């Protein structure tokens, strides 16, 4: 955490995997400087391929969105809202400036408590790890694409040709390989301002609520925690402090795990199946 120096959980070796401790990411945009070091470190460590240079025209964000070859994505939001204790007023009279704030937020796979992708996977390629994260086993995935439409956050995607390992589904691994060796995930390790904090889930939740409270007291009245625990997703392992509404960050306000729709859909399917059999029998009984 900020100010702890080498005592920070971002810098210490750990044994969370061996001890089966639930871990998480807490991402705090109020200290993010938009350097994209997390994106670079993630790509380097995980050998995530280059998926093209495109000018988006959206502030300084030319990454676009999370996907098969983008596992960290720094968002750049330019908002005409008051930033903290910014003195707002008319610039012509010289007593203030136009309300404006620039928010950077590093987006990542949420590693849901009830994960849509994991439930949907028909091969068992997607598993839950000892630390509570959701991992895609690349050598098992056959690229059916069902996880893609089952993720309520639009994180996981199938990697297109001609990129390496094309055809499989990819997303953030929570650097499971690093964690097994006691290392911190690459993005948190390099984050120069500790906007990304890695640590025990419980510690992070406590830190996050403290941070929200502190920001609210400092004039950021719309600071809130994005951690949907009251929906069927039942909480996420990578949660975010956000300024303003989740929609502005492309985050769903009430994400639901699609398995909650199964019961009604299967009921309809069975009813249709039975009705079709009865219709066929009646048709032959009365018209033949």
């Amino acid at each position, binding site marked *: 955490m900020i100010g702890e120096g080498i005592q920070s959980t971002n810098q210490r070796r750990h044994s969370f995997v061996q001890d089966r401790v639930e871990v998480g990411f807490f991402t705090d945009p109020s200290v993010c400087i938009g350097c994209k070091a997390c994106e670079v470190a993630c790509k380097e460590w995980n050998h995530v391929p280059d998926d093209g*240079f495109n*000018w*988006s*025209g*959206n502030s300084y964000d030319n990454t*676009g*969105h999370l996907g098969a070859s983008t596992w960290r994505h720094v*968002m750049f*939001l*330019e*908002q*005409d809202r008051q930033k903290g204790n910014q003195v707002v007023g008319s610039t012509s009279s010289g007593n203030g400036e136009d309300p404006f704030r620039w928010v950077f937020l590093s987006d990542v796979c949420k590693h849901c408590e009830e994960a*849509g992708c994991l439930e949907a*996977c*028909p*091969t*068992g390629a997607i598993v839950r790890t000892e630390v509570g994260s959701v991992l895609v086993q690349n050598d098992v*995935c*056959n*690229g*059916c*694409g*069902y996880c*893609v*439409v*089952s993720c309520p*956050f*639009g994180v*996981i*995607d*199938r990697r297109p040709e001609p990129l390496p390992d*094309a*055809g*499989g589904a990819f997303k953030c691994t929570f650097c499971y390989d690093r964690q097994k060796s006691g290392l911190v995930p690459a993005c948190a390790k390099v984050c120069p301002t500790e906007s990304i904090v890695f640590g025990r889930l419980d510690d992070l939740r406590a830190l996050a609520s403290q941070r929200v409270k502190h920001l609210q007291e400092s004039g950021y009245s719309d600071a809130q925690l994005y951690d949907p625990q009251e929906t069927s997703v039942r909480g996420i392992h990578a949660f975010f402090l956000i300024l303003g509404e989740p*929609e*502005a960050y*492309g985050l*769903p*306000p009430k994400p*639901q795990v699609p398995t909650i*729709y*199964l019961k*009604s*859909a*299967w009921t*309809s*399917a*069975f*009813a*249709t*199946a*039975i009705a*079709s*059999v009865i*219709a*066929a029998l009646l*048709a*032959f009984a009365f*018209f*033949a």
Partner: protein
Amino acid sequence: MTSNSPSEKRLEELREQAWQKGVVTDRGVDVAGGPIPRKPGYYGQPVVKPPVWTWEIPIYFFIGGLSGMSAVIASAAIVFHHVDLARTAMWLAAIGVVLSSILLILDLGRPLLFINMLRVFKLQSAMSMGVWILSMFGACVVPGLIVLELHAHQVFGGTIDQLLRIAAGILIFGSAFFGTLLATYTGVLIGATAIPAWFLHRLLLPIHFGTAGLGSAAGLLELLGHRLAALNALGYYAAAIESALLIWLSVDKHGMADRAIHEHGSGWLIRIGEILTGPLALVLRFLGLVPLAAISFLVGALVSRFGWIAVGKVSGSDPEAVFASQR
């Protein structure tokens, strides 16, 4: 990057346009209203991911539905001693299951790893259940067709033929059981996802896909020369249900959340599909134009499958639809 890369060229074009007009208004350049973006959500980026499925999946839905419901017609035909019709229907089911399997494997990002689906049985995954339904259907239909043909051609006599007759009966009923599930599970498959226009209609989708399968099977059998009153009745039944679903879809609107069904190209595909399978097929049957009604229904069922996948792509790319479905 070299100066003749596409993005450098594009930058040159933009500079040129700025020089000539004093303003750049092209796609990808957000200058209207200053630096603050006004697109919904985060620069209009999708919130959920649209499906990656290509043409194989809608055709698989069409053939799978037709094939599954052919087995239902075959079993009903067997019960009422229409052996010729049952044989044709089982041929359709068998050809359908082979094509369905090929299409399902072709759609995979890594077709060679298809077999990995058969090492897991997962009730909470409609994709896993679908693979098992298709496998069990194939395991009933193919041997069912073989024993039915052996029995029909009287290849063996006496006791063996009696055993074949019983085996054919069991396998055809098994085919019908898994066939009804094969035709309807596809509605669950896309209904239980994070795509707003799909999950909002998760009750309608299995009814639509199952009934479209039944009507397609009856229609194709009629086109193949089986002009039975029973098949005509099934054609009426399917067209009537589809007409009702057309009304349901136009009444049960969810505003922005399911606008992909009513707007854009995807909306037109749905509308054309529903009209061809519903009212038009019904009217043509009423006028006694049975082959035309059958063709109308088959084309409509195919168009509608493409329509629902297109709806998924439009709805999944629409951030406002996701927000509206959760408010």
